[in-house]
């Protein structure tokens, strides 16, 4: 898709065959709009803000209760923070490696079972399992990339989709085989609830939100201000060029994949007290994370966080529209609309579009 090496080479060829642009995804018109930089961004932020406001008003009319809507908004935003963290890992992997990781949700489920297992086995505080789950997922991610995705066999986009799909089936059903299908809980000791202007908020939800924002911020800072982060961004922008200035691209790819799955690991621990843990739970999160990634712009880490908050809202508001059913339906509607009308995402600049 947005092949990074491709852009570099085409730019080297003096009379670049513009037919490549003609057959590439979004037409030139849209690209030009994107060049209108910050003005366009502000305008789009306005449109999104307006749409959210309208959606909230409609929800108010539908439910007739301000409290219900307020509760949804609060719950939605809090959950959205977690979605953002999960999606950050996914979008990072896409932006740098061009891999759509279908196994992201399954890896998240693995991390949840690690958290569950550690809490069961040692009685550790759930949040302390971060110390186990995050390194474990980091390693697992690194192994997956080295073992399955790097090298010749992981070449084409379809192959990568298929490998990560196979991996997700493998992990999910592996968990099913060893832990069975019975749902499990990771209760948070000393959990409490409080009222935020009338909306009920549980401590676990608030901690998860704060933790997600903090970790997301940490990731963002790491990308901006560390040597590793600079290398990752260099590889994302132009892997050929990065290779020329002495960056070990394969190593960066592996590290990026590992960091991406570690994000899923962290999100899993934070989310564990909020959900019932089952082997197939990753699927739901995976779908939502994809939507968030597309919404925020594939490869756009900051966009993923904003997209997460939006999708958290959409999910909760859909529940109001549909009288409690199919919170995912609204998510998909948003997804399809964005996919068609703005495939580079709301805050978009796709990884390969930056030539």
């Amino acid at each position, binding site marked *: 898709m947005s092949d990074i090496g*491709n852009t570099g*080479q*085409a730019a*080297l*060829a*003096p*009379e*670049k*065959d*513009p*037919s*490549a*642009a*003609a057959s590439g995804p979004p037409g*030139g018109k849209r*690209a*030009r709009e994107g*060049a209108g930089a910050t003005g366009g961004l502000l305008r789009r932020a306005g449109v999104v803000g307006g749409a959210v406001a309208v959606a909230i008003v409609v929800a108010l009319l539908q439910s007739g209760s301000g409290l219900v809507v307020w509760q949804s908004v609060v719950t939605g935003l809090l959950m959205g923070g977690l979605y953002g963290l999960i999606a950050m890992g996914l979008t990072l992997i896409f932006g740098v490696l061009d891999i759509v990781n279908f196994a992201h949700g399954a890896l998240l489920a693995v991390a949840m079972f690690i958290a569950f297992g550690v809490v069961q086995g040692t009685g550790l505080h759930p949040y302390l399992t971060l110390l186990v789950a995050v390194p474990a997922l980091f390693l697992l991610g690194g192994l997956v990339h080295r073992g399955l995705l790097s090298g010749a066999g992981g070449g084409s986009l379809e192959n990568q989709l298929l490998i990560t799909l196979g991996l997700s089936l493998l992990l999910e059903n592996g968990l099913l085989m060893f832990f069975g299908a019975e749902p499990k809980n990771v209760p948070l000791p000393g959990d409490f609830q409080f009222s935020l202007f009338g909306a009920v908020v549980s401590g676990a939800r608030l901690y998860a939100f704060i933790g997600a924002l903090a970790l997301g911020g940490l990731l963002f800072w790491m990308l901006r201000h560390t040597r590793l982060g600079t290398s990752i961004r260099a590889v994302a922008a132009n892997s050929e060029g990065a290779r020329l200035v002495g960056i070990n691209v394969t190593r960066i790819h592996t590290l990026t994949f590992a960091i991406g799955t570690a994000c899923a690991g962290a999100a899993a621990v934070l989310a564990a007290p909020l959900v019932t843990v089952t082997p197939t739970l990753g699927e739901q999160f995976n779908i939502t994370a994809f939507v968030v990634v597309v919404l925020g712009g594939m490869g756009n880490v900051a966009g993923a966080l904003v997209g997460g908050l939006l999708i958290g809202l959409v999910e909760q508001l859909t529940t109001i529209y549909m009288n409690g059913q199919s919170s995912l339906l609204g998510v998909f509607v948003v997804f399809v609309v964005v996919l068609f009308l703005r495939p580079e995402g709301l805050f978009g600049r796709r990884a390969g579009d930056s030539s």
Partner: protein
Amino acid sequence: MTASTDGLLQVSGVGKAFRGLHALADVEFAVAEGEILGIIGPNGAGKTTLFNVVCGALAPDTGRVVLGGRDVTGAAPHRIARAGMVRTFQLMRPFGSMTVAENVGLAAQHERIPARKLRERSLEVVERVGLGPYAHRRATELPTAGLKRLELARALAMRPRVLLLDEVLAGLVPAEREPVLDLLADLREKDGTTLLFIEHIMAAVMRLADRVLVMDQGRVLAAGAPEEVTGDPRVIEAYLGEEPAAAEPRAAGEGADREDRTRADS
């Protein structure tokens, strides 16, 4: 618009910008039936973009393209091709999973002729470009020179009135160029085909073209008979900016560079 009858193909005021960069600006020319028009210009002059716009791969921002009195501006590529204007690609674009004959047959398919005639026609064209022995081989097995001929063969199978050739000679060694040049001359003689060809090899342009269009930075710099145009100081200047007497040596050492571009394009 003044739909004058002397131009089979008329291009007027065509402009095309990519992100604010003018790839084509106010390009204007006409080609008469049976004429051979050479298009030259330094790299990045917009020659290939012009073909893309004329054949519908890209829609122009401004201007119009009229073929045989019919406005085809911005029409889908397949409509323009079926209307009789067919192009080849500078970077070869074979259908990799088909044989050479199937590649060629595809181009003749739209005429809805019976299967046997279709096969005969495609083999005939394959023979004509000298690919006969390779007819039932996979297109991907052809060497560069063969792929160039395949590009040509596919376009010929459409029986075009106007044929646009994008550097058909590039990547061929001099011995391989002769038969292609003969074939092009033959096309005009026997089939009455109108030809537009982008070419860096000046000798070929001088030999074949009735008229030459010189492009630079997206504009038509000069147009006229080959001898006139090559003596034009503006043209010489445009070329001096790049590499003097570029054409001949460039073509020979071009293999590697070209392959790079093929990859970048695919």
